[in-house]
C-alpha cells in the first residue's frame, strides 16, 4: 500500500509542478546589492488584497482587474552602490533559469555600452500564456519581475504612466 501511494505521488509530482512557476534564484545579486526589495505575493495574498482595492479609483480598479487571474507576483529590486556592479555573468545566470521549454524570450534590448539590458520572457503552457518574466537592468539598478498567470503587457506598461511612476518619454527627434 505504501509503495502504491509513493508511486502515485511520484507520478503526480510532474503534473503538479508543470502548473507552477518556479521562483528565480537571485541570491548572487543579493550579496552584491546595497539595497534590495523582495516582494512575494501568492494567489491568496493577491485575491485578499484585491478585496481592499477601491473599484472607484481608476488605478486601483485597473490593478484589481489585472491581478484577478494571477497566481503570483514576485519582484526583486536591487540597488547597487556603483554603476555596473551587476555583470553580464549575473544576467546570464538569470537567463539560464529561463531557458526551459516553457519560456520564450519575446523582447531583448541592449544598449551599445551594455549599460542597459531589458528582456521580457513569456511562459506558455499548452498554447496558453502562463506568465512573464521581466529583466530590467540599468546603471545602479536591476529589477526582476516574475508574474505567474495571464497578463496584458501593454496594459501593464500603460499602468507605468500612472501611480506616480513617470512614463518614460523619448526625446524629441531632431528634424532631418
Amino acid at each position, binding site marked *: 500500500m505504501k509503495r502504491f501511494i509513493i508511486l502515485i505521488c511520484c507520478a503526480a509530482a510532474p503534473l503538479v509542478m508543470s502548473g507552477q512557476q518556479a521562483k528565480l534564484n537571485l541570491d548572487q545579486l543579493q550579496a552584491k546589492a546595497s539595497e534590495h526589495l523582495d516582494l512575494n505575493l501568492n494567489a491568496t495574498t493577491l485575491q485578499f488584497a484585491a478585496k481592499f482595492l477601491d473599484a472607484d479609483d481608476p488605478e486601483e480598479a485597473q490593478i484589481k482587474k489585472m491581478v484577478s487571474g494571477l497566481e503570483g507576483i514576485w519582484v526583486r529590486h536591487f540597488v547597487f552602490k556603483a554603476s555596473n556592479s551587476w555583470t553580464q555573468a549575473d544576467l546570464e545566470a538569470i537567463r539560464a533559469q529561463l531557458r526551459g521549454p516553457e519560456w520564450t524570450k519575446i523582447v531583448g534590448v541592449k544598449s551599445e555600452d551594455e549599460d542597459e539590458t531589458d528582456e521580457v520572457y513569456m511562459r506558455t503552457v499548452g498554447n496558453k500564456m502562463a506568465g512573464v518574466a521581466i529583466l530590467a537592468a540599468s546603471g545602479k539598478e536591476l*529589477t526582476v519581475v516574475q508574474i505567474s498567470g495571464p497578463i496584458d503587457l501593454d496594459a501593464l506598461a500603460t499602468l507605468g504612466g500612472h501611480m506616480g511612476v513617470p512614463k518614460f518619454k*523619448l526625446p524629441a527627434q531632431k528634424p532631418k
Partner: protein
Amino acid sequence: MDWLEEELRRALAREDPPAGFERRVRQAVAQRRFPARQWLAAAAALILAVGAGTGYREYRGRVAKEQVKLAMRLAAASANRIQTHVRGVLQ
C-alpha cells in the same frame, strides 16, 4: 376554644426567622446577580475579540494592498521602460 381554633393559633403564631436566614437570603440574591455579570463580561469580550479581529483583518488587507500596488508599480515601470526602449530602437 375548640381544637380548630387552637390549631390555627399555633400555625399562625409569630415566629422569629432561624439564625443566618438574612445572610442566606442576601447571598442567594448576590449569587443570582453574578451570572448576569458573567454574561455581560463574556459579551464584552466577544465584541472586543470580533472588533480586534476585524481591525487586524483590515490592517492586513491594507498591507497586502500596498504590497500589490508596489509590486505592480515596479512591474509597470519596468514594462514601460522596456516598451520605450524598444520603440527607441525601432525608430
